[in-house]
């Protein structure tokens, strides 16, 4: 199982590296969104207030995540899927995909934060809590969206729209918790204030990962 996962993970990274245009497009998407926000805020002179900074950051990450994860299953043809089906267990496929998406989103999130800091300033008072929350967010987005992208890929046609329609409502509770903890980190509140939300986030990530793990074999059988 572990061997299968590591092989699939290596395959995904190699594919990503060969199609650098997709990765470049994603980073450019984040970069240009941040730049547009910077231009809009500079009209009123300077950096946005902390709550706006926070909300905008997570909205940008959310849309970047949908775009990043959407291509995962959709770029694979039906023949390719059948080929994997004969080689590996479906559980290995979903775990490898979730892991890969989590790493990809973490990279995107960190780069996004860097760009954001350069253009829109950095009002974060508790950087360690913010980063821990960012990791939870990247993992949570990846686990939720991976199964959703698999579902949307099966439906064919307007995959990206369907992914947003299916994914956003499911992600709202997670997003609310993330924005709340992120706000606490911006305000430099004590860790004990965020403890309940952080634990709920961890539990939510585990629920989503476990249900994806259980449901994916049914999705793949078709």
């Amino acid at each position, binding site marked *: 199982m572990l061997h299968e996962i590591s092989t699939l993970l290596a395959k995904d990274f190699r594919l990503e590296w060969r199609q650098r245009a997709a990765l470049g497009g994603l980073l450019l998407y984040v970069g240009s969104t941040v730049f547009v926000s910077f231009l809009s805020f500079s009209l009123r002179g300077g950096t946005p207030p902390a709550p706006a900074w926070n909300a905008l950051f997570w909205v940008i990450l959310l849309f970047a995540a949908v775009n990043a994860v959407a291509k995962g299953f959709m770029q694979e043809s039906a023949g390719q899927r059948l080929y994997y089906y004969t080689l590996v267990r479906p559980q290995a496929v979903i775990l490898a995909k979730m892991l890969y998406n989590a790493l990809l989103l973490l990279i995107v999130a960190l780069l996004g934060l860097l760009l954001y800091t350069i253009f829109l300033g950095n009002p974060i008072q508790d950087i360690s809590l913010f980063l821990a929350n960012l990791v939870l967010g990247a993992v949570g987005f990846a686990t939720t969206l991976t199964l959703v992208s698999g579902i949307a890929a*099966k*439906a064919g046609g*307007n995959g990206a729209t369907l992914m947003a329609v299916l994914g956003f409502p*499911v992600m709202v509770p997670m997003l*609310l918790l993330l924005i709340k903890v992120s706000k606490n980190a911006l305000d430099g509140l004590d860790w004990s204030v965020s403890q309940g939300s952080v634990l709920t986030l961890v539990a939510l990530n585990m629920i989503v990962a476990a249900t994806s793990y259980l449901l994916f074999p049914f999705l793949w059988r078709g």
Partner: protein
Amino acid sequence: MKKNWWKGVTVLLLLYTAIAGFLLPVPRLAVLHESIRNLYFHVPMWFGMIVILGTSVFRSMQYLRQPSPRLDVLAHESAKTGILMGVLGLATGSLWAKYTWGAWWTPDPRLNGAAVAMLIYGAYLVLRGSFRDEQQRARISAIYNIFAFAAAIPLLFVLPRLSGPSLHPGQTGNPGFSSYDLDSTMRLVFYPAVLGWILFAFWLTQVSSRLTFLQLKSDEN
């Protein structure tokens, strides 16, 4: 006739709710006044929604274990009844909020949670609409049904506990009804109302499922 006794019970319970709910005395509370009677309609509708949506997920699980068109129809019709109950719950809640809090909608975790639940089941219907193949539609919408329910619905019960004070009753600590000013006369109407609306949801689902079965049958011929 033996199997249908519960429908008679439903009719009696709902009639009782409507008559006793409007005629029995209620505690005089500031702000709420007579609008407290909405408790007999608004809250039981949410109970009905959660129960029927749970049934829908259960049918979807059964479908994945043992696929059959019957289970798919039952899951779909249960979800549609759940949406209807949810919309009724939102409408009664919104009216109540307008007359007690002064606004149709407030940024409260419970209200937002209700809206999220409606969006999820709207997405479920959109997903169903985007498949041609019936078997694939049944299987994949069952997967989404289970996934979305597991990922979002439990949180609707957890999030209100985590957030701060709110206008909605039962907010901090235990969001049950013992904390609410529910005196013994109100319980006399409230519990039958809950049972009545839950049974009504099942009845409605049964009728609409039968209609779908008949349509499927006539399509075959």
